[in-house]
């Protein structure tokens, strides 16, 4: 979907999941799957008289992100209060950062390359996550709103882009790239539920800017944007025009719903957080973190091409997700056949992940599994077909390839008598093909295919080929006589 004059900007919120504690208190940040309201304390509950104390490690993690995105880190950053009432916020304001009214966020500027195109970053800031509302049953039927404050105060970074994307696909590519960068930095695990969320703003030629909130995962982004573009396009085509407004993505109905128009925009009354002092970041500190930066996706892609002689396209696909790149390298270290490995990862593993829509961490195999299969194939123990079968089986059961081969009896058959018996069986079943084969030897390939199909590809192909040839020439002789 590519409409002319479409401009898309994103506001991405990523939890710094690498941190052990929240942004302003020492509560555990490991809230997923926990009973509600156990990881709370007077500070993250905003109780009277308590004060926030900044988690320095959060600043370091956020600085790594800023450096990775090529942003300019502020020498002295400020925290601002964003004021609005909502039951998931214990203080009814959020400690955040701001780039107007004298505010100085963690970093400004930056750049992400996607598909031969650049997306500019406007700012990167640190802020606290609110708690979570939940309902018994559905929102409509529930008589109560329940609040879980375990998430309140978790460290977030907000990354705001310029409206440089022109299609939902580009937005998805941007997010995938961003996620890969964050995962390479080790600061945020995008596979955790709700760890990355985003708001999008979209404007079409002839229309005003519309903000879409509540996009809870990257998967939803493409959907929400496509819907919104279609909606705006039809408005413009009908001459109705698109006004500035904020809309909400309804994941269940897969539509956007108007939240408020420009006149009703919330006034957050930003002002400097008086309980936190300006945070000074020296160039020395920045350099220190620069020195500790791990390898990032772009560099890794280039290295894959150089070191493993992969095709640029393969290297690009492999480095899109850190875990996949790690898996590939894990294999390449065990078995020096990087190109074969990359083909198997791209041709077999990735489709499996896509079809099952699981994360690579949910895969039940390790690099050793794949390498074992490839080695068995290369030494002739199993055929390519069998190797595929074993891999699929290993993927679904997590068993070692050897086990699968033993269990299913799929080891390559080199028993001459057995092969001979099978060859005769195939020739008996296809008398017409045999007749043709006597005239045109190329038809032998057809018989070979039938043979392999009948035996599920377990026969040693070389041996089987020889046997067919021999049997055909025997038949040919007897026919002559």
């Amino acid at each position, binding site marked *: 979907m590519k409409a002319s004059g479409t401009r898309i900007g994103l506001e991405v919120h990523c939890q710094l999941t690498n941190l052990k504690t929240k942004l302003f208190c020492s509560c555990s940040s490991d809230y997923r799957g926990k009973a509600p309201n156990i990881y709370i304390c007077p500070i993250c509950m905003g109780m*009277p008289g*308590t004060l926030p104390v900044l988690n320095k490690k959060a600043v370091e993690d956020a600085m790594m992100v800023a450096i990775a995105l090529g942003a300019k880190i502020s020498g002295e950053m400020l925290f601002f209060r964003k004021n609005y009432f909502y039951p998931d916020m214990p203080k009814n304001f959020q400690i955040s950062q701001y780039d107007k009214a004298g505010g100085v966020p963690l970093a400004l500027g930056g750049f992400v390359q996607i598909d031969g195109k650049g997306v500019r970053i406007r700012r990167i800031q640190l802020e606290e996550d609110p708690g979570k509302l939940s309902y018994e049953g559905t929102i409509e039927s529930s008589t109560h709103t329940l609040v879980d404050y375990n998430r309140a105060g978790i460290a977030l970074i907000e990354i705001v882009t310029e409206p440089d994307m022109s299609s939902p696909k580009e937005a998805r590519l941007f997010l995938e790239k961003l996620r890969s960068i964050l995962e390479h930095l080790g600061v945020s695990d995008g596979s955790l539920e709700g760890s990355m969320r985003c708001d999008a703003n979209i404007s079409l030629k002839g229309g005003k800017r519309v903000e879409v909130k509540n996009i809870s995962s990257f998967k939803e982004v493409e959907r929400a944007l496509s819907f919104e573009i279609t909606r705006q396009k039809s408005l413009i085509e009908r001459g109705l025009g698109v006004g500035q407004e904020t809309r909400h993505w309804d994941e269940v109905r897969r539509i956007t719903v108007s939240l408020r128009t420009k006149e009703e925009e919330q006034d957050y009354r930003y*002002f400097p957080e*008086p*309980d936190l002092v300006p945070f000074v970041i020296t160039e020395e500190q920045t350099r220190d973190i620069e020195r500790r930066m791990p390898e990032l996706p772009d560099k890794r892609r280039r290295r894959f091409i150089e070191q493993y002689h992969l095709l640029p396209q393969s290297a690009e696909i492999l480095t899109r997700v850190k875990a996949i790149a790690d898996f590939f390298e894990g294999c390449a270290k065990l078995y020096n056949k990087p190109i074969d490995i990359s083909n198997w990862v791209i041709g077999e593993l990735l489709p499996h992940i896509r079809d099952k829509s699981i994360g690579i961490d949910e895969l039940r195999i390790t690099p050793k599994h794949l390498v074992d299969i490839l080695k068995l194939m290369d030494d002739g123990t199993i055929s390519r077909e069998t190797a595929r079968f074993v891999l699929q089986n290993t993927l679904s059961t997590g068993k070692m390839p050897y086990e699968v081969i033993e269990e299913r009896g799929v080891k390559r058959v080199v028993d001459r008598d057995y092969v001979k018996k099978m060859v005769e069986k195939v020739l008996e079943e296809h008398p017409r093909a045999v007749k043709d084969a006597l005239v045109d030897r190329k038809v032998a390939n057809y018989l070979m295919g039938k043979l392999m199909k009948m035996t599920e590809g377990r026969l040693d192909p070389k041996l089987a080929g020889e046997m067919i040839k021999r049997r055909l020439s025997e038949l040919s002789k007897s026919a002559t006589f």
Partner: protein
Amino acid sequence: MELSAYKLVGRIRAKELRVEDYISSLYDRIKRMEKSVHAYITLTKDLALKRAREIDKKIERGDRTGRLCGIGIAVKDNICTKGIRTTCASHMLESFLPPYDATVIRHIDDEDGIVLGKTNMDEFAMGSSTEYSYFGPTRNPWDFDRVPGGSSGGSAAAVASSMATLALGSDTGGSIRCPASFCSTVGLKPTYGLVSRYGLIAYANSLEQIGPITGNVEDCALLLSCITSHDSLDSTSVNKPEEDYTKHLIDDVNGIRIGVPREFFGEGTQDSVEKMVWNGVLGLEGIGANYEETTLKSLQYALPAYYIIAMSEASSNLARYDGLRYGYRIPDKSYDWGTVFLKDRRFGFGFEVKRRIILGTFALSAGYHDEYYLKAQKVRTLIKRDFEMAFKKFDVLIGPTMPIPPFRIGEKVRDPLEMYMCDVDTVPSNLAGIPSISVQCGFSKGLPIGIQMMAPPFREDVLLRVAFSFQRNFPTLAKVRDK
């Protein structure tokens, strides 16, 4: 009864006075006086007596005792005390039990001080008379028809009427110094960042400090020494070695340079106040100090700048009181959360608090933010600079604490502007973050007048030295209320 903490500590340690007897006598006094004064919201007699017996045992055993060895201290009710209700004199927090102690309370406990109870104040520290309390006003011990000043009125009245030996207050725009002046006590607002604010329920975070209210300068230095510390729980607390301020109780002002800014004697300053404060300055000159009149031009904008900043911060600080997690909650639960928040706040907050929240919300709103909040911050920067310039020439600046003597209860509640005007001489120190002390300067028609001394940041030593010399040389200015 002996009134000075520093002398009491000596007698207690010398086993001339048992802590339990002394604390009991304070509660006897409270029993007699409290009906007329109403300094306390909550008394913690059982806890205090238990603690007194513990300290007595310590002394008997010959164990080391803290610097506040058994001294009874009244604590303003916006300073959190673990398990003891902390109300901020508000319906909203009428039954709020903090699960934590403020850092200053931990220090008092470490130094063997004893909390006697929680004192009355203006609701959320918003006021200059202690009339805006959900629990009713406190009365001035010198004249029960008059206000004790505010917002730490209960703390100052408790000390002035000997219902406590020492007290803690908080000062956002004069809330320690105003009642200190009105009740003829000593009140010190420390340099911003010197005392931890952890556990102080915020009114305007960037302006306020906890500080001592005492009968004399010696006690002020003693209590200040006990509560100052770097606190990792308060990011705005300054990392600076702890100091024994009693070392600076030196009767010597020779060569001290005093500046007297004209702006402290502006319109609305009562003649009697002006005269007495000038007497004080001339008195200091008489014992060796030099003085010079000066001017800090930006101070003319201090009051509006102060109120804009304080109300802006307050509007945000007080947003958390919605009744959902603690505090006042309407009994009817059949509304959506928005309506519940609205009603909790409508019934939980008093009138003056709501006024300040609304004004602060306005000052921060889009379209007004630059004109009010940002401009006020600019004024603040100018005021800081003016003080810096002045302190290049002077060691201390002196002026009145309050432009008028204590007024009658009910006299100003109908006119908030007139009430706000009372803070004109105290707010500059909060905007600049500098230390400032109010000391007894005498009486006019039986009503106390205070003199205010200001010093550069972290020069509490100079302040205490000048204040101590003043008190030592002119002791008759500070009468003792002992009825």
